[in-house]
């Protein structure tokens, strides 16, 4: 039993978390998944114990969403947390009724353990730490000789105040918050998958091989993928059809940047920003090499400390706006929803997240087969991509809300054409009828 007086009992939503509860729908759920495949079948009873145990270390996840007079907030959830068997749904809307009001769920199936989390609770950086702790606790309860090695936050540890902080606010700079207006992005068209289901195709490649490939053209892995995605979108959707009005919007790849790597912070909550690569792709002869140059330049411009702080401050300044701040909650909700549906959600063609390298203590490695991340695909961002690597396995997961798989096909064929071996996993959403 948790002592309810020991930790902070409620939390303000961080700056980026505020928008999600107001704009989420059955299709645009703003939920994401990280998933681990163990080398053995998962025992649900033990996983349940591990989940209960580790929640004590992460009081900021033991919360529910409540309405205040001006803003939503996260309040301590005193109900029991229960793990669930994985169903066919991927990143479904966080049904708080079925989930005892928790904003994340832990799923299991065969040898898989997954955490799906609502974005208001935190970003990929926070959830990876949580997943690592969960797996550690699980393996320990199974009786395996695992050690935390200063990588894992174990349940014996105590949370730091810094883990709750809204780091966006910490680095907010009043003088550097210029608002840069943006245009609507190109939308990848296709046939929507019925019943808000999500298609999921992962490709497993060798980290080393892909790293060499991107270095050979002078790019980082993320830059290489962004350029390749733009090229694939161009080839499958726009090329030779540039005269169509809808194809004249810029293709924009939204790449989240984990700010913990740029500004010191221990926070488990949202602390990411983005860099965008964009181009109007109406010419008939764009080459991948041209995109490499463009993407490199746009990344370098977007990743300077000054620009990152500007984007952060732009968001915080919006929240600090007097009228918005003191607007009663229900009016604010409507205003945010309208703004988001008219423009906010239409600013990106695709989001491409590179979570990076996941490191486990050596003692845990024998039990872990692979790690993957899945972001949600929505009504405007119909195809999204999440990448992470574990040991020499680079796992690229493309999630989609449309039936067509041209983008996946061309994307992975690019690597097989270069002679790299690719192993595919799919949830075969085609069979979902």
């Amino acid at each position, binding site marked *: 039993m948790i002592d309810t007086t020991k930790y902070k009992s409620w939390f303000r939503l961080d700056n980026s978390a505020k928008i999600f509860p107001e704009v989420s729908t059955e299709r645009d759920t703003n939920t994401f998944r990280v998933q681990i495949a163990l080398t053995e079948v998962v025992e649900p009873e033990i996983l349940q114990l591990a989940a209960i145990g580790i929640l004590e270390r992460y009081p900021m996840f033991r919360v529910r969403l409540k309405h205040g007079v001006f803003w939503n907030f996260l309040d301590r959830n005193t109900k029991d947390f229960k793990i669930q068997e994985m169903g066919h749904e991927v990143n479904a809307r966080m049904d708080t009724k079925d989930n005892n009001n928790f904003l994340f769920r832990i799923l299991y199936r065969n040898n898989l353990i997954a955490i799906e989390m609502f974005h208001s609770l935190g970003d990929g950086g926070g959830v990876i730490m949580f997943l690592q702790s969960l797996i550690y606790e699980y393996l320990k309860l199974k009786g395996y000789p695992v050690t935390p090695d200063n990588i894992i936050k174990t349940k014996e540890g105590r949370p730091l105040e810094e883990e709750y902080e809204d780091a966006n606010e910490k680095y907010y700079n009043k003088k550097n918050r210029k608002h840069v207006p943006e245009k609507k992005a190109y939308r990848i068209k296709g046939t929507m998958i019925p019943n808000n289901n999500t298609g999921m195709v992962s490709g497993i490649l060798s980290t080393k091989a892909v790293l060499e490939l991107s270095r050979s053209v002078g790019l980082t892995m993320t830059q290489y993928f962004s350029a390749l995605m733009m090229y694939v979108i161009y080839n499958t959707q726009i090329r030779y059809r540039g005269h169509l009005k809808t194809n004249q919007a810029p293709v924009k790849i939204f790449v989240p940047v984990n700010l913990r790597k740029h500004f010191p912070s221990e926070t488990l909550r949202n602390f990411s920003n983005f860099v965008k690569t964009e181009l109007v792709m109406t010419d008939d002869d764009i080459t991948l090499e041209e995109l490499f140059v463009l993407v490199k330049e746009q990344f370098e411009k977007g990743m300077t400390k000054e620009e990152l702080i500007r984007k952060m401050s732009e968001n915080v300044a919006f929240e600090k706006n007097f009228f918005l701040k003191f607007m009663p909650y229900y009016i604010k909700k409507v205003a945010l929803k309208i703004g988001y549906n008219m423009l906010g959600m239409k600013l990106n063609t695709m989001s491409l997240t590179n979570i990076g390298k996941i490191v486990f203590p050596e003692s845990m490695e024998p039990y872990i087969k692979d790690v993957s991340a899945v972001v949600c695909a929505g009504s405007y961002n119909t195809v999204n991509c999440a990448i992470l690597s574990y040991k020499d396995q680079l796992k690229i997961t493309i999630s989609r809300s449309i039936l067509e798989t041209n983008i996946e096909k061309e994307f992975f064929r690019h690597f097989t054409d270069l002679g790299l071996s690719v192993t*595919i996993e799919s949830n075969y959403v085609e069979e979902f009828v």
Partner: protein
Amino acid sequence: MKKCDKCNIEIETKQLYCPLCHQVLTGETDPSFIEVYPEYVSLTRKILPTVKKTLLLLSILAIVIVALINTLAFNGVYWSLIPIGSTLYFWLLLRVGVLSRRNMAFRIAFLTVLLIALLVLIDYRTVPENNGWSFDYLMPLLLFSCNLAIFFIILVRRLNYRDYFFYLLIVIVFSLIPLILVAFDVLTILWPSLVAFGLALFILLFLIVFFPKTIKEELQKRFHA
């Protein structure tokens, strides 16, 4: 391992086609292999929606018929508002009071306010020379019971009592309304309003003395900007 010769990829699955290009896969997969992701299970519809829909249809029919009779044979009184109000109350009682899994204190407070509205409606749609009882007696006494109920929930369910706090504070504020109405001569009988207010005041003092931190915190989180 199976293979797609067109895409040059490998895949372990019992499905027959490539997820990228939909061409037939070659090679074999071990029969004991379990698919990585679960199959589609259509969410089975329970019997409840059919019952609910039938009831809904009957309710709508009843409302329309009653409203029609009332207008066609109008005798100077909108008596149909009583059965219509009761039907709506029944639905909200079912939806919010029974089927909803919302906070119990919220349900009690919501249904009390609704019941007061219904009784006021009945009061003013029946014998005209005898009305006012709903305001004078029922409103304060219902608020009294509501206050008492939520207060007891808080005392009994110590573990998550904080979840009910805000609703109790709201009902306490509501309990002031009858007294204000007395002050403005809308209500004529003082004692029920006084009883309701007395209890509210007692509970408020009780909370201030025994849960000062919770009250402060509850107000902070609900009103933070």
